[in-house]
């Protein structure tokens, strides 16, 4: 069995190595105009998800951006990853959005991400590096998740079981002998223990609290200022960058296909920019989407 596993590992290693060599020989020639990291929030609490956005623009028409190495995400949990390349007027815009959360408080500097390509301006291979971003994390450290604990405990148990199995058998035998020798009448059973308290609910993310507060304020006071606050909270929720318009968000499917979020965004867009006299009507039309 061990020999078989070793052979499979050797074959896999050779395949991976040859693939990486082949990849190194086929770098794409690109005019890289933009390759940068950004965050949708500058400060988050432990466990609150946030978005790390890698944005690239190249002059060429490409379907995907290859040979990108993401930065080291130590101290952060990767909750999801979405890549998208869209044709722009002068090339291609590629956006990779990583949804992360931090496991411990403090300042985390992330980056740089790298892109290996042939620089079309010089014709030479080059590693493009992005900027660094820093996020401030507040709150208490997060306990490692169940998967990590389970994995570590399983490994330790298997190792311990192999080396200490005989000791366990001997201990059991000794305990059996001692129990038989010093057997005493049964003591009364202790009262049943109270059930363990329910774990606290997960913390509400900042954007959600901000959105709830903004919608509550809009319901109480249907004004343009409150509609603008809701719009900003919704934009933060979908990870809109400051230079992105509603059409950009639609184009890059920022709502991940959630039609109700898109409808809410469209409705508050109307309420935020329509004529003064039509603001109450626009807010009335928007509220069903927001409260939903």
């Amino acid at each position, binding site marked *: 069995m061990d020999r078989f596993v070793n052979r499979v590992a050797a074959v896999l290693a050779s395949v991976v190595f040859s693939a990486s060599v082949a990849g190194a020989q086929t770098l794409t020639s690109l005019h890289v*105009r933009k390759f940068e990291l950004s965050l949708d929030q500058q400060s988050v609490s432990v466990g609150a998800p946030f978005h790390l956005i890698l944005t690239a623009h190249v002059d060429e028409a490409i379907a995907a951006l290859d040979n990108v190495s993401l930065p080291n995400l130590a101290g952060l949990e990767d909750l999801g990853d979405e890549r998208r390349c869209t044709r722009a*007027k*002068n090339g291609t815009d590629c956006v990779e959005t990583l949804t992360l959360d931090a496991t411990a408080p403090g300042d985390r500097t992330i980056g740089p991400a790298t892109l290996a390509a042939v620089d079309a*301006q010089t014709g030479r291979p080059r590693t493009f590096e992005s900027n660094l971003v820093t996020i401030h994390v507040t709150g208490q450290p997060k306990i490692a998740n169940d998967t990590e604990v389970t994995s570590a405990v399983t490994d330790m148990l298997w190792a311990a079981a192999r080396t200490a199995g005989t000791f366990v058998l001997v201990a059991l035998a000794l305990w059996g002998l001692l129990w038989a020798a010093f057997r005493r009448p049964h003591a009364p059973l202790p009262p049943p223990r109270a059930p363990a308290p329910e774990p606290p609910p997960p913390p509400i993310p900042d954007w959600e609290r901000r959105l709830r507060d903004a919608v509550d304020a809009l319901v109480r006071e249907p004004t343009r200022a409150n509609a*603008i606050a809701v719009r900003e909270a919704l934009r933060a929720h979908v990870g809109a960058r*400051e*230079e*992105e*318009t*509603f*059409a950009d968000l639609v184009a890059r499917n920022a709502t991940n296909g959630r039609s109700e979020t898109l409808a809410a965004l469209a409705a508050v*867009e*109307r309420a*935020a*920019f*329509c*004529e003064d006299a*039509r603001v109450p009507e626009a807010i009335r039309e928007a509220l069903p989407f927001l409260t939903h």
Partner: protein
Amino acid sequence: MLDALSVTIVGQRATLEALLHATIAGGHVVLEGPPGLAKTLACRALAAAVGGSFKRVQFTPDLLPSDIVGTRIFDQHSGEFTTALGPIFANVLLADEINRAPAKVQSALLEGMQERQVTIGPQTFPLPDPFLVTATMNPLDSDGTYALPLAQMDRFLVKIVVGYPTAAEEHTILERFGGDVPALPADVASMDDLRRWRSEARAVFIESRLVDYIVNLVGATRAPHPYLDRGASPRATLAIAAMARARALCDGRTFVVPDDVRASAPPVLRHRLAFNYRTLTENVSAEQVVTDLIASVPVP
């Protein structure tokens, strides 16, 4: 209107939209693109669609200002001067390959474009209302051309860059037209409709934060920039607002949204910026500079 124009012009949706928005915004248009991309046909189709009079002037190096605005002719029988009005007296004037005539001739258009009137000798004649100058330029063949004076470029509301059609669109062009001359749209709208659209567009609401956004966009072109010598004038600020209003109207809205402003900025700004030598030496596209500038301004 766009559908009617699309019958004559296959593809080029962005070009037709920008042309229509500029017409409704009441501005003049420069179309830049290689030969054979239906720039001239688009202008003819627009004039036909709104039922206006159309005149075309092929700009050449030997053209004279009087060939455009008109001239005074001495009548030997009556012993008096009479005025022969030039082709500028039309609702839509197509200045084909405008950069092939010297600055003197190009400047002859200035008064007409800005003041909507022309002075010939001692007399001033009002131009028809609406009056629209559509000019075409070929960016590839620059031998024997004259750069347009900046004052005149500034008077064009937008510069539309016309690109090549897609393969599918080119198939449609072959199937639809073959060797025939494309039919022009007719009776789609009237001059009265166009005047009404312009009036409605002027009434489209722009919220104060969007006004700030427009001002910031134009202001960003005047900040020190590695590829720019000079930014856009306040006329560009007015032009973006007018184009955004027209776009909102065409979209069935009575108010402007950030997308209207952002979409209107490139055609308004691209011909108003003075790019320096570094764009040439570093092979940086002017279009990219404009795009980056616009992206650098936060959307409200």
